[in-house]
């Protein structure tokens, strides 16, 4: 009876959560319905000449007593104007009025946008940095050990949950010819770790040329993108030398609107920005904002949003416009998991990047922030590095290079298009004259397994460094290696030539299985036996102890219950999950962890 009650309470809770989520989603879809009073963005069709458009516009404006406050020249998009309608007419009515004219492509309110609210209080987690490994460049910035997103030494897995920045910096530290516009709350351009990389920007909130950050959000984003690096101060930026163009469109309270954003985009375009970082957005679709973005050749790196929504269902803009020059970035944590707050979407979010406990610059100081706002700058910085090496690449080419070289994780398959987290090194290695590549034969077999590794690198490397995943290394060009323990091994090859290096890594590439011996069925404790254990993933370990075809909690439980039987009757190799060389309780614990 009690179990039934608990079950109903649980179902009721689920129902409540579902209703709450749907309601929240509906709210998000509708937006907060806030817009700048009296302002409407109107886009006129191309009707031959500017004079014709002006004529239609002035005729329509006169009809309702509206006046043009920004012409299409100011807005930077042909036919787009911003009008001020009289107080006697509501904005929705004015929008409807303009839309009803055959020469108007669209009309919409000037929607208000807010910067994401700060998420939680992150704590500084200091890492112990390893000494500089071959193929890495570690900067001397004292707080680099707080920047796990660049170089994460805390997660013990063989694959690091970071963007491989030290490896990327071995290829490029960015060019001062590349301009990254930070369209945000401004930037503290006097900051000790930013000043050298900041160029003159603009403040569209106060309409002056002083884009000083009075909020903090923009300065944090700018630091990750391009803090002055290897200067023995503060932090490292992804692109050490790229220039930051501060474009202030959000006020001190983190508020902006579509018109300011479009003006900021036009300004960045005019200043020659190659990359535009947009760590903001809303759930309201704006045709005008989309058109402004598509009229700009720069690559837009946009935050995916912080509400934990599936943006395939509830789109977040500008990240989710289907424009070819937009990358939508979700946030991952230091364990390569989607963060609790990040929006996700199998078709709407392109990739993840570090977005939790991100340490960067703040006005006059430094600090931690969380959010997809913090993830997007990692991608913007990486795009700047690529642009530095390949100035001729356009936005789509840079985007494709980034998306085709993420670190894929199977558990991220349902979170974004690429199923992976940003890797800054890989896209750079593809544009290098030196490119590491290798093959191995055989790549699987039973112990003892002798594997022949073959260097297939391009660019005629001069030296080689192999790691075989079992602690052994080689500097031969085409080494042979003998594996004596079952397991899956990740192989890396680093090749060097005249100061350049390139790394190729193949995760779990060599699969060494224990020599096959028949396994026996486990007793069921009632005088009978379970089905014979199986090896569902064909790794040589029979982790399906009860033989039902899959791994579950019952498997470690059965191994625990029948430990003495296993020790006596079963072949060691197939049940030695913890690689101890014998069957024991360590295998129960390991199998439980695998479940």
């Amino acid at each position: 009876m009690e179990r039934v009650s608990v079950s109903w309470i649980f179902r009721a809770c689920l129902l409540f959560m579902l209703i709450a989520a749907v309601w929240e989603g509906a709210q998000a879809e509708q937006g907060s319905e806030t817009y700048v009073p009296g302002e409407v963005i109107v886009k006129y069709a191309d009707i031959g000449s500017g004079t014709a458009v002006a004529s239609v516009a002035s005729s329509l404006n006169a009809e309702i007593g509206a006046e043009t406050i920004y012409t299409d020249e100011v807005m930077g998009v042909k036919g787009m104007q911003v009008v001020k309608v009289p107080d006697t007419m509501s904005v929705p009515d004015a929008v409807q009025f303009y839309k009803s004219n055959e020469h108007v492509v669209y009309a919409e309110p000037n929607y208000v946008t807010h910067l994401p609210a700060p998420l939680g209080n992150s704590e500084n987690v200091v890492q112990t940095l390893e000494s500089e490994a071959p193929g890495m460049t570690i900067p001397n910035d004292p707080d680099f050990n707080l920047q796990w997103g660049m170089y994460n030494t805390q997660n013990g897995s063989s694959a690091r949950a970071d963007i491989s920045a030290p490896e990327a910096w071995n290829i490029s530290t960015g060019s001062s010819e590349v301009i990254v516009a930070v369209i945000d709350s401004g930037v503290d351009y006097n900051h000790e770790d930013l000043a050298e990389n900041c160029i003159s920007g603009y403040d569209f909130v106060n309409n002056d040329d002083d884009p000083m950050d009075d909020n903090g959000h923009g300065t944090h984003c700018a630091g990750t993108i391009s803090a002055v690096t290897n200067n023995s101060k503060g932090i490292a930026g992804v692109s050490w030398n790229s220039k930051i163009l501060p474009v202030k469109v959000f006020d001190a309270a983190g508020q902006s609107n579509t018109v300011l954003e479009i003006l900021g985009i036009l300004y960045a375009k005019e200043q020659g920005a190659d990359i535009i970082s947009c760590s903001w957005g809303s759930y309201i679709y704006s045709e005008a904002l989309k058109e402004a973005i598509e009229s700009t050749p720069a690559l837009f790196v946009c935050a995916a949003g912080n509400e934990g929504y599936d943006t395939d269902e509830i789109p977040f803009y500008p990240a989710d416009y289907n424009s070819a020059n937009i990358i939508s970035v979700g946030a991952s944590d230091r364990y390569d998991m989607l963060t609790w707050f990040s929006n996700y979407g199998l078709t709407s979010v392109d990739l993840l990047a570090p977005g939790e406990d991100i340490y960067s610059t703040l006005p006059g100081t430094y600090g931690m922030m969380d959010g997809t706002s913090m993830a997007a700058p990692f991608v913007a910085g990486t795009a700047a590095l690529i642009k530095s090496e390949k100035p001729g690449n356009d936005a789509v080419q840079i985007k494709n290079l980034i998306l085709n070289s993420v670190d894929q994780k199977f558990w991220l398959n349902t979170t974004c298009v690429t199923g992976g987290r940003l890797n800054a090194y890989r896209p750079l290695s593809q544009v290098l004259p030196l490119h590491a590549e290798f093959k191995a034969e055989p790549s699987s077999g039973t112990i003892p397994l002798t594997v022949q590794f073959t260097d297939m690198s391009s660019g005629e490397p001069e030296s080689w460094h192999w790691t075989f995943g079992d602690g052994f290394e080689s500097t031969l060009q085409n080494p042979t290696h003998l594996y004596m323990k079952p397991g899956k091994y990740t192989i890396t090859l680093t090749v060097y030539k005249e100061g350049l290096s390139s790394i190729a890594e193949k995760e779990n590439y060599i699969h060494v299985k224990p020599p096959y011996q028949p396994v026996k069925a486990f007793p069921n404790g009632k005088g009978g036996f379970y089905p014979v254990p199986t090896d569902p993933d064909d790794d040589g370990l029979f982790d399906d102890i009860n033989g039902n075809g899959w791994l579950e909690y019952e498997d470690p439980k059965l191994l625990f219950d029948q430990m003495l039987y296993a020790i006596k009757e079963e072949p060691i190799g197939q049940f030695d999950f913890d690689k101890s060389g014998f069957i024991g309780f360590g295998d129960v614990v390991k199998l439980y962890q695998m479940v």
Partner: protein
Amino acid sequence: MKHTYQIGVLCACMLIVGLIAPVSAYSLLYFNPSVVESNPGEQPAIDLIMEGCNSGISGYALYLTLDNPTVASFGEITFPSWVSMNKVEHINSTTILISGADLGTQVEPGLSIANLAHISIHALTAGYATLSVEPVIIDDDRSGRYDPVSKTASIVISGAGPNPMIPASK
């Protein structure tokens, strides 16, 4: 002079023993308390402790024996919270097999002493019984296995008459 030399050698030996002892790998299974006095009908309890588990514990299987079933028998066996998977199996009238695993990896390397089980005893009649432990396997967290020394416990059940004598050899 010869006397002084002998004292010097003795001191050197003591110093060497003192230096070596703390680093020697030694593990011990014992009961706490080591002597339990009770009366028929009561249910005294006793803890099984492992000392020297410096490499952590992933799990264990141990035989517990009460050698005089007319005097005392096993009651309930309970386990500390770190033993997140456990089992008690009755082998015969005097012996049980207890097993436990540390799925939450709570007894990690560096912890030198751990409580393995809490054993309740049924005091049946006046007399004497010995509680002993025989390890089958005790695995550590570093792909190794312990080979501990075991100590017994004495269970003394008092009757109306004189208390039974505890055999000196135990």
